[in-house]
């Protein structure tokens, strides 16, 4: 294959009629322009207009958006919400973490009024959650775990051992056999290492 064309910000790539704008491009006056320096890639989707995007050798910046699944670490809890740090978006590690909040009523889908934050999360737990809102002026990203696939995936017991899930709301310490309550995620089969 011929070497891909390299481009720089501000370069006019093609008319909007020939291609659809993809990552790293913007449109102006009916044309597609590059906004990044990198290589131009034209992708043909079955019968649709080819999508023009720019790939770089280094990863681009990601921000959490509504609807994405994120992996986060619980930093602190109180009676109303748990504060977390978002570390992964999908399967991409973030360079810097973002702060998020899981409110009590977003922890699980049923019997919301009976939820207790401390019976669902503890500081240090690794939680898979979904972004439901970017928050307002006071709050940061709002997350939810109200799905079977969302919740705690890694937790350590008071004895310090990594616990084993035994039901959707309990995990057990392999050392002391003490059961602790968590909102456990049913990790999808494709993510499990076997």
């Amino acid at each position, binding site marked *: 294959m011929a070497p891909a064309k390299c481009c*720089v910000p*501000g370069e006019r790539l093609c008319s909007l009629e020939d291609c659809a704008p993809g990552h790293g491009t913007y449109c102006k006056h009916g044309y597609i322009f590059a906004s990044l*320096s*990198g290589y131009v890639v034209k992708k043909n989707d079955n019968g649709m207009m080819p999508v023009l995007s720019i790939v770089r050798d280094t990863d681009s910046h990601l*921000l959490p958006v509504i609807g994405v699944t994120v992996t986060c670490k619980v930093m602190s809890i109180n009676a109303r919400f748990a504060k977390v740090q978002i570390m992964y978006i999908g399967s991409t590690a973030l360079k*810097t973490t973002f702060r998020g909040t899981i409110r009590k009523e977003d922890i699980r889908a049923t019997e919301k009024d009976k939820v207790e934050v401390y019976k669902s999360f503890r500081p240090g737990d690794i939680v898979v959650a979904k972004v439901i809102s*970017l928050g307002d002026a006071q709050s940061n990203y709002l997350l939810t775990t109200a799905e079977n696939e969302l919740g705690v995936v890694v937790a350590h017991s008071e004895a310090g051992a990594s616990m084993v899930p035994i039901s959707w709301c309990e995990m057990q310490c392999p050392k002391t056999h003490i059961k602790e309550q968590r909102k456990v995620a049913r990790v999808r089969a494709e993510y499990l290492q076997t």
Partner: protein
Amino acid sequence: MAGLELLSDQGYRVDGRKAGELRKIQARMGVFAQADGSAYIEQGNTKALAVVYGPHEIRGSRSKTLHDRAVVNCQYSMATFSTGERKRRPHGDRKSTEMTLHLKQTFEAAILTQLYPRSQIDIYVQILQADGGNYCTCVNAATLAIIDAGIPMRDYVCACSAGFIEDTPLADLSYVEEAAGGPQLALALLPKSDQIALLEMNSRLHEDHLERVMDAATKACKDVYAVLDQAVKEHLQEVSAMLGDRGMA
């Protein structure tokens, strides 16, 4: 001798340049591994270093958050050893605050900030050696650093100064020419679309001359663009060669 002769009868300037000629520009991108993007540039004896971090979560007071676009945070500083006289330069003095504000305005016009709502992009520039055209050198350095960081921009921002001495517009003033006290204009241009990101002049110049000086500055900005473009393309090839032709996919 009645002052320094800034433009000789043969049309040469103090440092031997022609009226529209730039100083030698040398640029290097990706000078720091720590930062998301960085660049070092020399324009004659003016040397500047720029680093870019972000986009990341808003630091400090969260009230700065913009819900539809990213906040561009700039900081301009000069090294203590950058001028002839060694001087401690505290952050936030009037001159550097003004320069910071200008840089912020310039890059808010160029960066596609609406792609990163509720986040922040930090641009830090430092002058290591000052020999005229500090603002312009900083803009050029920051442009390269932003491109290195992979932050989407409408276009390059190229900046260059121009002055007006003895009825002749001069491009890219050096310190000696700036200190002479003639009118001086700083222009930051998006060269592909010919849009002005920032234009500044703080002395009096007759309206009739303005167009000629503007033309000289525009021409100089486009010359700067050619050099920066070259630097970016070289850097791009260097990086992809280092990563083993991943860009060729």
